[in-house]
């Protein structure tokens, strides 16, 4: 890949993406090409990572092991039966081990049911008794903590930090060290 093309790509990506600075975009492009390896570019062929390679990276870099999680969105992860809704039952299923069982309580599931109600109250914006993707998205936009509302499914923050530190390392700074 020639320098000119790289420059152009960096510029266009920086323009379209508000989250990353030019330097950071450059780092990400570098990373991408490092991962893909030296592939000669040909007309009409989109270069990229195949599923296996991506899975390996997720596993290696972010320490994620659950196969099911890896290729899906958080919402899809939580939508156990794949009907595009997270139902009360699914929630109950996912939350059932989230509370310490208190021997004093008559119905051990009481707390879980209540928790499901609380969650629905918070996230079910259209009040249909189940969570659509729209509900989910809105709730997460309001409170990012709810992204993994029903259990962990993303790289843990520690791995994220390490990744960022690795990728966005300032080459100048590195040289100084």
């Amino acid at each position, binding site marked *: 890949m020639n320098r000119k093309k790289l420059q152009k790509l960096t510029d266009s990506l920086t323009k379209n993406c508000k989250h990353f*600075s030019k330097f950071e975009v450059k780092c990400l492009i570098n990373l991408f090409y490092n991962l893909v390896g030296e592939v000669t570019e040909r007309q009409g062929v989109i270069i990229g990572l195949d599923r296996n390679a991506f899975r390996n990276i997720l596993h290696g870099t972010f320490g994620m092991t659950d196969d099911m999680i890896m290729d899906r969105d958080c919402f899809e992860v939580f939508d156990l039966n794949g009907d595009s809704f997270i139902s009360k039952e699914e929630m109950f299923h996912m939350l059932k081990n989230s509370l310490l069982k208190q021997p004093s309580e008559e119905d051990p599931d009481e707390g879980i049911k209540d928790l499901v109600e609380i969650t629905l109250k918070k996230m079910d914006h259209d009040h249909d008794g189940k969570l659509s993707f729209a509900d989910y998205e809105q709730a997460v936009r309001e409170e990012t903590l709810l992204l993994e*509302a029903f259990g962990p499914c993303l790289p843990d923050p520690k791995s994220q930090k390490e990744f960022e530190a690795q990728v966005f390392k300032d080459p100048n700074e590195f040289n100084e060290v």
Partner: protein
Amino acid sequence: MGVALTRSAQWSAAGHGAKTLEVTPLNEAIVKEIIMFVESFIYKYPQEANYVFVEPLEWKTNLDPSAFGSGYAVSGTTVKSEEVDKNGEPLLYLSVPQIKIRSFGQLSRMLYIAKNMKLKEAQACIEDYEFSNGCRAPPWRQIKGEICYVLVKPHDAETLCVTCSKEGVFLNGGKTDDEGQINYERKGEIYKDLVTLLKEKSAIFSENMSKQEIKFSEQPQKDQPNEAPKEEVAITHKTSITSRKSTQEKNRINLGRSQLTKRLEPSLNWRTSVSSKESRNTLRDTQGEKHGGKLEKSRSSLSPGRAQLIRKSVEKIEEIISDSSSESEEDEEQPDHRQEANADLPSEYWQIQKLVKYLKGGNQTATVIALCSMKDFNLAQETCQLAIRDVGGLEVLINLLETDEVKCKIGSLKILKEISHNPQIRRNIVDLGGLPVMVNILDSPHKSLKCLAAETIANVAKFRRARRVVRRHGGITKLVALLDCRKHSAEPAQSSLYETRDVEVARCGALALWSCSKSYANKEAIRKAGGIPLLARLLKTSHENMLIPVVGTLQECASEENYRAAIKAERIIENLVKNLNSENEQLQEHCAMAIYQCAEDEETRDLVRLHGGLKPLASLLNNTDNKERLAAATGAIWKCSISKENVTKFREYKAIETLVGLLTDQPEEVLVNVVGALGECCQEHENRVIIRRCGGIQPLVNLLVGINQALLVNVTKAVGACAMEPESMMIIDRLDGVRLLWSLLKNPHPDVKASAAWALCPCIQNAKDAGEMVRSFVGGLELVVNLLKSDNKEVLASVCAVITNIAKDQENLAVITDHGVVPLLSKLANTNNDKLRRHLAETISRCCMWGRNRVAFGEHKAVAPLVRYLKSNDTNVHRATAQALYQLSEDADNCITMHENGAVKLLLDMVGSPDEELQEAAAGCISNIRRLALAIEKARYS
């Protein structure tokens, strides 16, 4: 007997019902004396013993009817004496347990019958003494509705003699000197009950009444009554409860007010905080006690609370020393009003309780859901804030901060950040050890966590103890580190998400530092951690939300000399000036405040002008709605106008006229600064004319009657400066301003006294008939002379200056001589203070002009110390001293003293001084000494 009882008997404190005599040796002796008197009465004065009382003595007896023998008719539970009055009524009548006796004879017999129970009976008789209608006032006063009289000696006031009447309670004329009679005349208002009256008369009483647990025996109210009132005690009990509440309410209001005024910073440096501190202490006690009687839940917080109180008192000294003037305990002492046990709990309370249960017993997923749900409550509402605390939520939230779960920490901090706006919650968080945990989070690699922790610390560190905890756990260093966002870019549009987050971290750090910077030790810690250059760098941004905490921190810290130097060195003034032009009023206010603090320094004042800061400051005067900003702006103008070049600029901008317009209808915080600024401007003739022309003298003179000490110091200075213009002086005189200044010499505060005295000097100089004017103040001259007994150097110097001016009038000089001005001045002669030396020497030289004062100064040993003044480094002292010595050298003995003390050589040097007055005086003095020596020589040879 009555007198003995009145004066000496030791009554027990008010119990229920009647007062009782305490069992003390003194009381026993008194009662025994009474018994002896009564017992022997029948033998000693047999005639009088038969005299029948108008009203019977009546009490509850323990005597058994069977004890009565011959001379009495006993039937069952009643006894009648056979001795009767002329109507046939028995003189002793006992109907168990009530006994009525109507003559001394029967009293004697009764005591004889009582045998070993004499003491008890006598005591019961004395204690139960009251008229049958329950009143204790003499019958002729009962007609007027009076019930009884009480003497009350409060801790902080004179003994009060109080009449309790049917209409209410009032002060009477007190006990007259003879025989403990009472002057029944009403002297003052009628209060509804004794408590109200006492609260009005005694501050300590009212303070104590506001305490939660009043033990009656501990009250400052010590009755030494003729008789003690049954009714009153009952009333006191009843009202104490309501009055206690209202006092607390009042205190709260006061606190609220002091918080309000707190933000008006510029003048606070002089505010005496004694009174507010006192009221705080009261409240603190109240809280301490309140903890005790709380719901079970809150009891756990009792012991740490107490421990803190103790710790606090130990560390107090350190903090008092180390805290700067801007320190305030704004919220620490707010009353802790927890939910009453029986009050109706709002529904939120139960919902929050349930969520806290899930927080405790859930895994990360459940915890996050519970946290998010809790966040949806209105956390700005006190009900929710206190509910979270009262169900033990604070403990759980703080515990979550110690876990490794980032999400839980974030969720917990998001809640803590909101509820810590509540002063009580802040205290609770500190009590539960929340601050060290948050300080640790500042090290976290997660920027959002850092931000939340810093923001929460910013809220919590609003009181001194919290600020200290932050510092002791290394929080200041960590917060300063947050300010360091390396890739900080000036243009927000181009920065990436990461960089934006860095800026946000720095902003939160600044926010927390702002709160922390109110303690002196923290200011030092910030400086040592290298905070100033970082703050200076952040000051270059254009984000208002960043600038406000940064400037806020700088403004707090600028109270310290170290900072002011650093602020100058880091070129911060430039940016402060730039931000004066901001649209944001709060930012303008803090910039002006910072300039106000820094402009003590001359170079800084010049910098403000050079960077064009005077014009925006002057234009800030035009908006008078925002009083905080107005106070800051006028403060900055005041300090800047200490430099003449700045005053010239302000005159150009017509700021002087605007300032005169601000002399009325402004809060004291603003007035202090406005008058201070005018006082500086007045040092120039041109400005004095402006002030007179736009009618500034009248409002200035009007302010002379205030009580704000800082304001009075500035007003007297300004009025004094105005008096330098004869034309202005006429106005001041017409407005009776000189009399007002003169009466300020009686102000308790030395700064005010001195400032008033300095102001009087130009007044006397420029008044038309000054001598007559001064004489017209009755007792004025004596007052001034007596101020020479002050131990404040500034007061002494200023009073000397006043006396110098007064003494220009021969008649007045004669009067002050009679008041003993010479010995008083002579006493002051041994001083090293050059200012005092100068003015003292001037006064002495002026006072020499009357009678034999020259000789008198010599006799009072003022001459030798004056000679030593010539060794001072101050030419002003030299000139004044040489002149004084010249005057004194007219007396031969003084010449000898001067000669002995080596004056000649010193004076010879001064003859060569470029100062002509000094030359002349020195030469004159030498000539007098020389002439005396020649005369002596001549006498010897002739």
